């Protein structure tokens, strides 16, 4: 009985990934076809679980720490109702904080540009629930890469690298989101500055939007304001509208050249790199020796 549930869960995961890919690729008919198959599999899964409920409770499935298994379990728990609680072991206590990758995803989604762990942590502290320890972020990219290699595209997004425009190698110290278009994830010579200005605009608009920005938010905004010409109209004061305006003004100067560089690099990346390299970058390798030595 347990095997068929396991096999069903795997099929469900696979179908979900395929649905997502079909949607991203714009293929609606294939997507609805896959969705139908997905619904059937889910129905079969519910039935199998209900049948299992009649039997004595199973041994708790060993948690081997693999991210895929964890994700499948997490999804299973979310999908089924209280029926499954007896199955998967003691219920997880209600979490007060999102897992690390969700927090990073939140911060990056606000910034809309690749960012360093320090900036991600500062944004999260200023505008979301609290600081993220930067030490935990250093291994995040590697963990995400491993998770991707184990099961490509199994998760809705991955926290991945930004690539250098010239060699398409991973940029040290930057995190980005896999669902962003390639153009946003390549870094040319002008891109660090353009992304900095974009981040300033996003943070300024957030500070204006949220009801009670704390001192951390104003401090963060101020650090951007002093480094953008015209960002702080009067010394010691910081006004989000001024910062945004000044950032846009400077960005106009760099935008065209930067967009051109990024566009060319993105096209090359899509042409030359496979899926894992497009997300996590490619590294220089020694070319194989051609021919036999004389």
């Amino acid at each position, binding site marked *: 009985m347990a095997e068929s549930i396991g096999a069903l869960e795997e099929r469900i995961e696979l179908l979900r990934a395929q649905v997502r890919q079909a949607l991203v690729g714009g293929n609606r008919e294939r997507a609805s076809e896959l969705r139908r198959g997905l619904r059937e599999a889910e129905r079969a899964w519910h039935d199998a679980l209900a049948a299992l409920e009649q039997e004595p409770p199973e041994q708790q499935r060993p948690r081997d720490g693999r991210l895929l298994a964890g994700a499948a379990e997490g999804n299973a728990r979310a999908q089924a109702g209280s029926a499954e609680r007896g199955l998967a072991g003691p219920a997880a206590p209600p979490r007060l904080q999102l897992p690390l990758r969700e927090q990073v995803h939140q911060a990056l989604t606000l910034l809309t540009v690749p960012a*360093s762990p*320090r*900036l991600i942590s500062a944004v999260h502290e200023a505008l979301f629930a609290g600081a993220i320890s930067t030490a935990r972020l250093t291994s995040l990219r590697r963990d995400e890469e491993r998770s991707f290699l184990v099961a490509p595209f199994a998760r809705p997004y991955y926290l991945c690298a930004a690539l*250098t425009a010239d*060699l398409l*190698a*991973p*940029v*040290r110290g930057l995190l980005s989101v896999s669902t962003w278009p390639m153009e946003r994830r390549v870094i040319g*010579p*002008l*891109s*660090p*500055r353009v*992304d*900095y200005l974009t*981040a300033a605009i996003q943070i300024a608009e957030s500070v204006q939007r949220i009801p009670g920005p704390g001192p951390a938010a104003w401090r963060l905004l101020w650090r*951007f304001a*002093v*480094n953008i*010409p015209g960002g702080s109209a009067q010394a010691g004061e910081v006004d989000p509208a001024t910062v945004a305006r000044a950032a846009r003004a*400077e960005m106009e*100067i*760099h935008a065209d050249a930067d967009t051109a560089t990024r566009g060319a690099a993105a096209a090359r990346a899509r042409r030359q790199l496979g899926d894992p390299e497009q997300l996590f*970058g*490619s*590294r*220089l390798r020694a070319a194989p020796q051609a021919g036999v030595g004389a």
Partner: protein
Amino acid sequence: MDSTEARLDRIRGKVPPRNHNARTIAALSSNPGCARRAIMDAAGADKQRLAAHAGFPAGFGQSQFAITRGNAFEAQVKANGCAELLRLLRDQLRLPIPEVSYDNLEEVGGDASRELRHARTRHLLMRTAASGRDAGTLFDHPLLRLEVGGRAVYLEPDLIAFRLNGRFHVVEIKSFAVIDGQADGGKVAAAVIQSAVYVLALRQLLAELGIGPDAVADEVILVCPENFANQPTAAALDVRKQLTVLRRQLARLQRVDTLLDLLPAALTFDLDPDPAGTPRRPAADLADAVRAVPARYAPECLASCEMCFFCRDEARGATAALGRAVRDELCGVEHVASVLSLARGADPGPGELAEAAQVLRSAARLRQEGLGEAV
């Protein structure tokens, strides 16, 4: 005939070499006559370990705290495409707003080997110097090379900035504070000499590409924290004087292979560590080996070389150990014992020291009259 590399490797022993950096080159050029230091630095020997094992540990070098703080400040200044540094450069160099291009030379496509980084540095700087549309502005962690004592040494300045139709500027980021416009004189002086080394290296690199020395400014940008906050501030420092001194001293640095020729072929400073890393070589044996290479101790060594206490102990009894000024006052007599005996008048000394003897005797008499005690 062994190659120089092989001989230096043998002298160093079975450990990986420690790199020269601008600090060691600056210190070396301030004492060019010291063969011991020249050989040890060229071989990349760990002077701290050698001194400690020979029985004269130097409580030396930067504390881990200072190193961490320096790295943190540098990271802050260079964060987000050098946002804070751009503000300072736009102010100091009048860097125009459109020039913000940033290139990171810390690794090339994930590969951090020095040859590769140096080749890429040359490529990017050459492209920039041609001042085309792709001219870069900020070069982070560039890798330069300098000939020191006949060997090439890799050097890594903090950053090089370039202004279009302008010149390259070396930028040094240090974590000692500038308070009310003043900073510790000794630290600033050290920073200036190190930056001069980088200017020299950069000029050499550009010369190899056929670009004249005027392409590199004589002014170095020093970035430090201001007052008691961590806000960075920048100042332009003129290094022309240091450049002249440096060029002269580096030319005087004897080629390392000439020095090696004077040494016994089997000389080695290897500590012969056991598998746990504890040195097994007897300390006296190591001390003898070190003494086989002549040194030139001066009190300045106390501030810049880890072997200082060893060499000072060795130089005990020589007036040179008291510093050049004192030695000149003592009329250049070489040993303290001779000075004292000449001053006491007991021994008239050799003919050529007659004048010195006279000076020293009058000094002794003055002292006796003034302090009431005999020399």
